[in-house]
């Protein structure tokens, strides 16, 4: 551990932590528990007020009288969160990290100030975000992502009556089922999973039999929805939101005809993708994953990125789900403490075996899910000129096309010409769409097209907060003996 504090030049560059973990979801919490018992000084930062990440949001302090209605996969997080809360590492909640450097520098907003710390090893576990659903009218008031419906539910116990849920993927069905269990009326479910997905996924059915429980859970959700009497339109396509100034209806094609259904609340969802802003801003190497149709950081078997001192664990390294995220978090932490010299190579390899085995078994199931719920192209890559791609700067397909003709052949050049991706979300909402659009227009592989060059701050940063700059010092508390591992 470092103790070379108080350098003569007066700059506190060495008040460091051995390990900093960003994001206290399943991956971050699991990593923290491994790191804490190793004797390393550990800090964890999360922008929420409580641990749990999106999946276990508020699991120990739910506003719902009976959080069990949210399902066993939610409440089982209570144990992990409780163990994590007992661990004695430094924890910053309500800490919005806006810069991570490959030199180990971390800057974050906390209690209306900018704080700085440095860490020898960093684990990024900032999770996933919902895949954008760039169709006509998706930006209108009244349209939300299904994930934000769940956030309202978990945070404040709020629901919207008579909403239409549109899209595909396990999370969509789960949220609908959660609504139904709470007695909320769901107007309809418009399922955009195409027939071809079943055909693609079918050959993998035998390889997922070891995960029969998970498979049955999914089937159970679909049955629950069907039994409730909620109208379900399957194999839907050509989805568009109608309305001037706000959503009034959703139109789609299903059962051989177009439908137009009045709706004030439309929840869209077509899966999740890694939350890229942090890994991109650091400058880690990324690649395009055909299986999940998204950019991912390049990681080795220890979740180590192209910058060796930085690991990426959980969904922000590629969508794996909460259980696999825990294993990734553990593997990342085991490798970090090995790099710090706290365990031997042999010990590392021994301790990693359990998680490595579990991970490879999760992967087969993930492949099945990915094939089954791959969002269809017309809902990822808009062709209608009027569809808004960049919501912050209100750039439509037509405007991007003319920027492309003007010379904006790469995402960065297109941004310079159209401002697409320059707004407050920093391209989170349009980055994947722009990569795919340009690949189509250039008739080239998406990897050649690339992605925006991301910069700090990773999220909006108040100027007054920036002007107040403080160095955070490690208290030097190493994690106390934790009885939990693997």
């Amino acid at each position, binding site marked *: 551990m470092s103790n070379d504090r108080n350098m003569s030049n007066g700059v506190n560059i060495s008040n460091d932590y051995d390990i900093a973990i960003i994001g206290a979801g399943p991956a971050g919490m699991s990593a923290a528990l491994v790191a804490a018992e190793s004797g390393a000084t550990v800090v964890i930062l999360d922008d929420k007020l409580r641990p749990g990440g999106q999946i276990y949001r508020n699991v120990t302090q739910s506003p719902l009288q009976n959080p069990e209605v949210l399902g066993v996969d939610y409440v089982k997080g209570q144990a992990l969160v409780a163990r994590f809360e007992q661990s004695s590492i430094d924890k910053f909640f309500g800490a919005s990290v806006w810069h991570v450097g490959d030199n180990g520098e971390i*800057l974050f907003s906390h209690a209306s100030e900018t704080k700085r710390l440095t860490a020898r090893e960093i684990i990024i576990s900032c999770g996933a975000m919902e895949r954008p659903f760039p169709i006509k009218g998706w930006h209108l008031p009244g349209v939300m992502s299904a994930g934000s419906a769940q956030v309202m539910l978990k945070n404040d116990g709020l629901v919207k009556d008579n909403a239409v849920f549109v899209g595909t993927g396990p999370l969509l069905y789960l949220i609908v089922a959660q609504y139904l269990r709470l007695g909320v009326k769901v107007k309809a479910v418009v399922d955009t999973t195409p027939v071809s997905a079943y055909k693609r996924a079918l050959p993998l059915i035998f390889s997922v039999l070891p995960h029969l429980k998970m498979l049955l859970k999914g089937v159970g959700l679909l049955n629950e929805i069907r039994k409730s009497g909620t109208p379900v339109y399957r194999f839907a396509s050509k989805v568009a939101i109608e309305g001037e100034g706000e959503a009034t209806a959703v139109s789609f094609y299903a059962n051989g005809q177009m439908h137009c259904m009045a709706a004030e609340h439309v929840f869209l969802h077509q899966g999740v993708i890694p939350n890229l802003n942090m890994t991109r801003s650091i400058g880690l190497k990324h690649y395009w994953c055909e299986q999940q149709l998204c950019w991912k950081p390049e990681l080795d078997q220890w979740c180590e990125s192209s910058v060796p001192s930085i690991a990426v664990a959980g969904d922000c390294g590629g969508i794996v789900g909460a259980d696999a995220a825990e294993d990734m978090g553990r593997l990342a932490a085991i490798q970090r403490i090995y790099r710090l010299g706290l365990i031997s190579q042999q010990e590392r390899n021994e301790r990693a075996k359990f998680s490595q085995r579990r991970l490879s078994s999760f992967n087969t199931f993930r492949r099945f899910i990915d094939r089954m719920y791959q969002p269809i192209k017309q809902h990822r890559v808009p062709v209608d000129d009027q569809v808004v791609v960049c919501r912050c700067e209100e750039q439509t397909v037509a405007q991007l096309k003319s920027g492309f003709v003007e010379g904006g052949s790469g995402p960065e*050049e297109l941004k310079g*010409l159209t401002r697409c991706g320059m707004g*407050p979300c920093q391209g989170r909402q349009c980055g994947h769409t722009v990569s795919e659009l340009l690949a189509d227009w250039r008739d080239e592989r998406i990897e050649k097209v690339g992605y925006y060059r991301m910069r*700090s701050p990773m999220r*909006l940063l*108040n*100027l007054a907060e920036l*002007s107040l700059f403080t160095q955070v010092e490690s208290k030097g508390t190493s994690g106390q003996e934790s009885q939990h591992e693997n």
Partner: protein
Amino acid sequence: MKTEVIIIGGGIQGCATAYHLAKGGVSVTVLEKDRVSQHASGVNAGGVRLLGRHISEVELSKAAMSLWSSLDEELEGDTGYRARSLINIAADEADMITLKQREIQMHKLGYRHEIMIDQQELRERLPYVAAHCVGGVVSEQDGYAIPYKSTLAFRNAAERLGATFLEGVDVARIRKIGDSWLVESDKARFESTVLINCSGAWADKVAVMMGDNVPLTHSAPMLMITSRMPHFATPVVGAVSRPLSFKQFENGTVLIGGGAKGFADRANNRTRLDYAKLAIGAKNAIDFFPIMKTASVNRMWAGLEAYMPDNLPVISKGVNAGNAFHAFGFSAHGFQLGPIVGKVLAELVLSGESKFDLDAFRIDRFERKVL
């Protein structure tokens, strides 16, 4: 590949030079090691500034200003240029004395474009300025343009006139054989009669290959931009004695600069920001404009920029070989000069001379005389 002129560097100087040469009927090829406008020319603060220019730059800058006012029509493009005036704010009486001395010097030389204003006029022009600011100086024609678009507008216009732009061509070797310049990258070879070095932060490396030494350094001036704010400032704003400069664009976003430098990693095309310095910049912005307390920073970045020891550019014929020209080292204030530098270099190539006095910009001005 053979051409009359090769320009190394696809920034605004190189693109503007290519435009004026192509307009003069010369075959010209621009070799850019990355993408056109990728570095300082595409990511600078976009200031179109005549105010406060070094005396030896005033004539060039004035000529550039008159080009800017009709550049969109000339290039049939969109540079985003807006004349908004530029005000340098005096924070105290010492600043006012500095301004007065400058005014005397400028008047002596017959320049009348910088006009001092008092506290009342400052407040009329900038209603949100902090109460402690006592006055300032204004230049009416100044304003801003969008750097990436401006550079691209020159490139597009040059291409329409027949200029060739090759991106991803990193020049590795240059030789002068007889009357020909032989320029090689690892993949291709080019040949020309005239060679022009507009390679910004990399210009010293290119100059050495051409046979000219130059004491160039490079750095990474930092900028940040806020998300949209209610409109509160029309003029571009600077400060007499503090590192502050900002401008509010039509869409409400505010660009904050001021010259604070991050760290430049030229070999890897990368910059690293110095956040503690940006924090000082944030503080300065709030000190001068308290309304900025509510601003949200959306992006921070830095570009790779070339600096000369005297902060004046090199605009010069080569010393050690004929048919060699240089324009670089603009020391973070070359964007506004781009249009005129292109014109001057084209004139130098075509006629061998310029109507401007370029003595202060000679590439060999730091060569010591051997006694």
